[in-house]
């Protein structure tokens, strides 16, 4: 019996102790007509060797394409040490550190993580993680509504240039709480969210403004102006920041005059493998004054009876298991193991290393874009600086060429028209530090080839927009 240690002797002795005739008898409080007879939808048991073989086959059956998709999940090198330590049984198979004295390993890791995130973001406090970047933004919106006591409107300005899945997730989660998510358009030339677009809301009661850096198009926003606009208009500023970008760009705690109120985003770039989308983790940082409105677990440093330093879960009075229907969030389990991985990742890579990775990722994407300088059919759509992603307009139908490139083991980017119909045949392309010059050449050659092949048959190539 897989994973069950009971011998026949054990079963007999245990039933005798209980005073039951059979294991079946232990279920006598369940109405008989409810009981399962067959489980035909579950296949027969597999032995581990059978399973191993199946999984090896499935993991290899689709090849390993060279990937230039980012769009919210980024391919970065992860030191081997990170996951070899993270999956040690003591981290892997422990639970939430309810018994602090027997969980100092996990608790200290989280405290170190919180410290690292506050330093990376230049913020005062960090929680112990949320599910992912998108749901973290939703929680940030809810938090802002709680934290901005002066505002009654529950209106939140949400730029269209924020990741579409983040916006969708936020909609799903805040939908039933009378919150008004107001879309702010992006500038068609720059791809950024112009402060001018906010003008119309001046004087209104706005609860919060969301600011993504970079935004979904990879474009860098005028974060100082946007932050100051929010504060000048009584709104809280919520930053959504790629933490890898924060290593080279002004961190959200220093945007504008006083920095943002809440920073959140996707922790995946910090040591978490792509792995089809999860588990990742959402990080969240805030200013000191908002800490009691922050959702999720928080670890604090304290002392034991002998005055020795120790770590413990704190501010639990915010949480659902204490406050129930009045909790800041219903979150319970978060993404502890990913936080462990990220903490080890940041320790090994270091701040300077992170900065070099960020800068090389930027430079690689720029170098990739440069390779199309002489191809009139391929070129950047927006004219503003970007981090490590860029929107390329391709002069032929993407639905023709992307499958062809994928066949050739090249994932050329994310097609934007599914979310932005106005960006037809536009591709969001990302080249992180993992890409070599040869990889960029391979991309350029393949793209030039398929564009050439398809130019005649496809939609007419449009002139570059920038």
């Amino acid at each position, binding site marked *: 019996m897989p*994973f069950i240690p009971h011998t026949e002797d054990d079963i007999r002795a245990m039933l005798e102790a209980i005073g039951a005739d059979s294991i079946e008898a*232990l279920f006598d409080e369940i109405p008989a007509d409810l009981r399962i007879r067959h489980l035909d939808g579950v296949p027969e048991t597999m032995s581990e060797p059978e*399973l191993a073989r199946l999984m090896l086959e499935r993991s290899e059956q689709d090849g390993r394409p060279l990937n230039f998709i980012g769009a919210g999940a980024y391919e970065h090198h992860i030191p081997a040490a990170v996951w070899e330590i993270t999956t040690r049984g003591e*981290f892997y198979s422990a*639970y939430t*550190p309810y018994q602090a*004295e027997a969980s100092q390993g996990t608790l200290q890791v989280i405290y170190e993580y919180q410290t690292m995130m506050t330093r990376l973001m230049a913020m005062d406090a960090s929680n112990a993680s949320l599910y992912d970047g998108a749901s973290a933004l939703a929680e940030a919106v809810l938090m802002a509504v709680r934290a901005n006591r002066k505002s009654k409107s529950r209106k939140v300005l949400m730029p269209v240039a924020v*990741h579409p899945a983040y916006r969708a997730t936020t909609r799903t989660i805040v939908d039933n709480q009378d919150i008004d998510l107001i879309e702010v358009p992006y500038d068609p030339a720059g791809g950024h969210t112009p402060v001018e677009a906010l003008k119309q809301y001046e004087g209104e009661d706005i609860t919060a403004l969301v600011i993504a850096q970079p935004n979904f198009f990879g474009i860098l926003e005028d974060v100082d102006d946007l932050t100051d606009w929010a504060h000048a208009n009584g709104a809280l500023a919520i930053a959504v920041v790629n933490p890898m970008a924060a290593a080279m760009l002004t961190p959200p705690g220093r945007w504008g005059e006083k920095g943002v109120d809440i920073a959140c985003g996707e922790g995946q770039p910090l040591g978490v493998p792509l792995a089809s989308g999860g588990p990742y983790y959402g990080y969240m940082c805030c200013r000191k004054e908002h800490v009691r409105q922050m959702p999720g677990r928080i670890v604090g440093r304290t002392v034991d009876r002998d005055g020795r330093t120790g770590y413990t879960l704190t501010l639990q009075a915010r949480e659902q298991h204490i406050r129930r229907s009045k909790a800041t969030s219903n979150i319970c389990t978060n993404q502890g193991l990913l936080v462990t991985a990220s903490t080890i990742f940041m320790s090994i890579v270091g701040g300077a*290393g992170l900065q070099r990775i960020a800068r090389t990722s930027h430079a690689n994407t720029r170098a990739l874009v440069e390779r199309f300088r002489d191809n009139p059919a391929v070129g950047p759509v927006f004219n503003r600086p970007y981090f490590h992603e860029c929107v390329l307009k391709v002069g032929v139908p993407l639905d023709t060429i992307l499958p062809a490139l*994928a066949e050739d083991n090249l994932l050329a980017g994310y097609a934007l028209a599914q979310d932005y119909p106005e960006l037809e045949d536009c591709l969001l392309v990302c080249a992180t530090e993992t890409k070599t010059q040869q990889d960029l050449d391979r991309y350029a050659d393949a793209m030039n080839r398929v564009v050439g092949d398809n130019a005649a048959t496809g939609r007419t190539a449009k002139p570059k927009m920038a």
Partner: protein
Amino acid sequence: MLIFEHSRPGREAPGHSPRELADVSDIPAGLLREDVPGLPEVSELQAVRHYTRLSQKNFSIDTQFYPLGSCTMKYNPRACNTYAMLPGFLARHPLAPASTGQGFMACMYELQEMLKDITGMKAVSLTPAAGAQGEFTGVAMIRAYHDARGDSGRSEIIVPDAAHGTNPATATMCGYKVREIPTMKDGDVDLEALKQAVGPQTAGIMLTNPSTLGVFERRIQEIARIVHEAGGLLYYDGANLNAILGKVRPGVMGFDVIHMNLHKTFSTPHGGGGPGAGPVGVSERLEPFLPVPMVGNYGDRYHWITEKEKPQSIGRLSAFMGNAGVLMRAYIYARLLGREGMHRVADFATLNANYLMVKLREAGFDLAFPERRATHEFIVTLKRQKKELDVTAMDFAKRLLDYGYHAPTTYFPLLVPECLLIEPTETEAREELDGFVEAMIKIQEEAETNAEVLKEAPHTQPVRRLDDVRAARELDLAWSEH
């Protein structure tokens, strides 16, 4: 010692980042960071040594018996980790075309199918990232259902007073008022109170069955009838699914929607507090509202189901498809158990719980529900010890650590005073349970003869009892050199 205290300016673990500082002069200086983020500057060995040693300061399933009630701390098979982390799976981008992810998607599709059969539901979406998000999903679908029918006067969710805190918190997040109903002395829901509570304002009820009191709600069919007749739907909180895996389908009990905590019932790792995964299953009437993405298939080709195919979906819950790697581990676990192994989980979880309960009762401990069968867990109350000896459930819990056992859940459910909620799980051997009983007996003796040793416990851990009050009052949430 913190990792930051090993840091020295200029030290680093090279070879993990580019050597050159690439040019970024195309970016306006005002947007660039002026300093280097203040992360630790340590060697790779220092990091490895630090975190290896830290790990040793944890209790975990792999090192200790961990009977934390309601959390199902059972063995996390190593195969699930090894094979979910094959390089081919780790490398796949979530937005890579389905044509390059057929192997992965086959696993997800089959997992959906298995969960459907196990829960007796019509359809399953894997995307919720944890139990609480699954709960949110379920209640949001209930709301979407009523709204789609134009039945929007329903403003209340009924929750028993024994429920997990996530239940009322979730109902609130979905814009519902929470109406609590009491539990009777035998641990079952008070049906009279329920009848009183339901009405045209009732959107639904959230139930855990077995309940958090460690007993099976015997009149579940009647509850379903009452709620359904009032026009409400039934939400099944799957936290305790381990107790009935392969025994009873929540769908057959009358539930309309269920979430499953895969990190409990399907033994994916708890990871020091996540990641979990909280797939939801629904009956036919809720199917249109399931969150996306889901995996569909045509013949043997798999594809993603999105809002396009499910226009009534409540939408997305995360940027991609949820905790894919957790789902992979659950898939592997389910395949290793197979059809034959599923009901054994409930069998032996129940056998272990009842055995441990009987042994503790024989040893003189008071049970919260002495007349009831234990399900996969049960409650000991130390009310008497508190009164007679002035020792608390917390004191017992801390002292258990000294005996090498993780403490059971304490002070939950809230309605049982000085309670220990004990869940041994099916993967523990009888000797382990006997050892735990022995420790409890010794601690009881200590409580009677030398209560100080409990009150001062633990004595063998890296730290002694921590000052939680100070932690909350003098908030220290991040380290600084000064």
